[in-house]
């Protein structure tokens, strides 16, 4: 990382820390959701962007993480912070196990298999044998955690900083993962899996691992999302959530770490803008935005920024 990038990162972090003190609680809550989505998108990006496996079912892992957190808090009385690593661990295992059979599927077929997972999830959550724990269609309402240690923060601000800390941690982990040996292996498999195997990369192991790690990120995001929203219900995690995640990483920039953040900003704020422009056809407006982004920035926002900075260096 160059010095300039480090300074930029420092400024960004400082701005992120000042943010909740200058905007309203409602905006703080929205930015908390942006951070949550950024973690989920980073997870999906590891799988799709770096490893080339398309998933249309990451909403299911998000739901799994959210329900882990909600059930642990509501039924077992666990503290909110303890639920986040548990949700991550559960999703890591679930993702790895789902990745094993999914290995035999390539490209579009994998997309279909994961799509099935995404479609099935809300109905599984409504399944009445599990109702004792999941609360069925009613969902689970959870309480908002106050700031600890007598910090002079309101619950929204505290939750924002809690999420920010975890986001930073997850981004550092992700950055370390993809720029090292594992990251190179993932990219090699994506670009040419036969060549990768010839170089001695254990294809199936890395692909399942990518699935597991990706699901873990999404699960952590789901747990944080549930704590922020204070409510989980099957209707919160329908197939559109999975599709929106995919939209997020493509708009943000495939195989890019900051791209996850741009994508998160897009999926959080653009639907609201679309709704403000037209009540009659918010999705048409959303579609126009999406086409404009993809047309003007074919490599995502991250790609466009990269292009701009290199161009400036050249001139």
């Amino acid at each position, binding site marked *: 990382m160059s010095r300039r990038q480090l300074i930029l990162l420092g400024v960004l972090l400082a701005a992120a820390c000042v943010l909740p003190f200058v905007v*309203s*609680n*409602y*905006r703080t*809550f*929205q930015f908390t*959701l942006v951070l949550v989505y950024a973690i989920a998108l980073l997870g999906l990006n590891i799988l799709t962007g770096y490893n080339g496996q398309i998933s249309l079912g990451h909403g299911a892992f998000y739901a799994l993480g959210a329900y882990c957190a909600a059930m642990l808090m509501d039924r077992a009385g666990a503290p909110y912070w303890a639920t986040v690593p548990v949700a991550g661990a559960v999703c890591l295992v679930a993702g790895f196990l789902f990745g094993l059979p999914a290995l035999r599927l390539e490209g579009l077929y994998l997309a279909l298999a994961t799509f099935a997972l995404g479609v099935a999830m809300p*109905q599984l959550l*409504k*399944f*009445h044998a599990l109702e004792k724990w999941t609360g*069925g*269609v*009613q*969902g689970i*309402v959870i309480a908002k955690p106050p700031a600890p240690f007598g910090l002079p923060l309101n619950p929204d601000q505290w939750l924002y900083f809690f999420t920010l800390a975890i986001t930073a941690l997850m981004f550092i982990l992700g950055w370390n993962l993809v720029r090292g040996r594992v990251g190179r292996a993932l990219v090699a498999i994506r670009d040419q899996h036969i060549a990768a195997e010839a170089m001695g990369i254990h294809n199936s192991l890395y692909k399942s691992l990518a699935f597991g790690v990706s699901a873990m990120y999404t699960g952590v995001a789901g747990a944080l*999302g549930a704590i922020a*929203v*204070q*409510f989980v*219900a*099957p*209707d*919160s995690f*329908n197939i*559109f*959530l999975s599709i929106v995640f995919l939209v997020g990483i493509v708009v943000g920039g495939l195989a890019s770490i900051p791209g996850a953040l741009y994508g998160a900003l897009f999926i959080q704020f653009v*639907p*609201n803008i679309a*709704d403000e422009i037209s*009540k*009659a056809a*918010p*999705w048409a407006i959303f579609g126009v935005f999406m086409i404009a982004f993809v047309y003007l920035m074919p490599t995502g926002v991250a790609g466009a920024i990269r292009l701009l900075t290199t161009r400036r260096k050249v001139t």
Partner: protein
Amino acid sequence: MKAKLFVAGAVAVALSAPVLAQKKYDPGASDTEIKIGNTNPYSGPASAYGQIGKAIGAYFKMVNDQGGINGRKVNFVSYDDSYSPPKTVEMARKLVEQDQVLFLFQTLGTPSNTAIHKYMNMQKVPQMMVATGATKWNDPKNFHWTMGWQPNYQTEGRIYARHIMATRPNAKVGILYQNDDYGKDYLKGMEDGFGAQASKYIVAKVSYEVSDPTVDSQVVQLQASGADTFFNITTPKFAAQAIRKAYDIGWKPVHYLNNVSISVGSVLTPAGLDKSVGLITAAYLKEATDPRWANDKGLEPFREFMKKYLPDANLADNFNIYGYTVAQTLHQVLKQSGDNLTRENVMRQSAAVKNLRLDTLLPGIFITTTPDDYAPIEAVQLQRFNGKQWELFGDVMTSH
């Protein structure tokens, strides 16, 4: 003596006048405006419901064109939540914290309203006349700031039970219900209606999942139980299947169909109009396209409203008359609130509606609330399908 009385009266008037004229406002209200928040699914899988939000918006546009309420314009701010509870939380917070609305009105959906139930009551912002039939919205002791509007599912279930007990005391009832809070609400209503005799009347209860492809086997099961009365608690798709299946296997019970699925166009036509003859259900709103109301004076203002403010909307879509009627109810509450537009007072006034009669409600149905009763519409009238349309019969019934 007369003069004295007059003086006393004048003093009283002089003393009370400033009190009357004193205007009290909470965020969202001012001398010129009343700001109201709403969420509706304008996009997503449940976007058909979005028509309710559009109808309410159009209604208040009409009110504003006619001079507003007590001289104030109504600013109806409605956001899309695409029927997703997390989005509802976000939008409700936006409305309360950023847009500073006086209260939320007609937020739509049982899960969506559950998601903001606690929040609204903690913030002490009214969650007014929510668009869902669940019974839990009528709980003023624990949730002072939340109120329902339409007859709730339990009320309706109780009314069917009463009708069965009054007309056929030896009936054997078979029940088909959707296995979720909606289905269980209806079931509980019917069981409560039968009271201690529930086990004598109800001979079979069978449930289905929304994910089931059909309810055919359930209907066969109910027939085999020997039931001669069928209470059909299903959403439109399953309702059509059940009606058709019961007819096809030659089961001829007295068939009660829940109000959720009474649409002639989307339920009875696919099921077969000839197979639907004799269905009994409960209703509280007039249907705009029903020939019975073709010359009804009461529906004329509604028809004009539709022509002028919602020219593109489908008159047969019942959500229009629903939105129009619930907006009229709020109109009355705001009129009653006068110049005291605090959240506390608006809530107090909405719990003090006495025998409000609206022309889009069926004859004989009134809206009444009290501080202990947050269920505005509790009466319905039974109607029977004659092969072409629903025909009202009997008296207006309440659950009490």
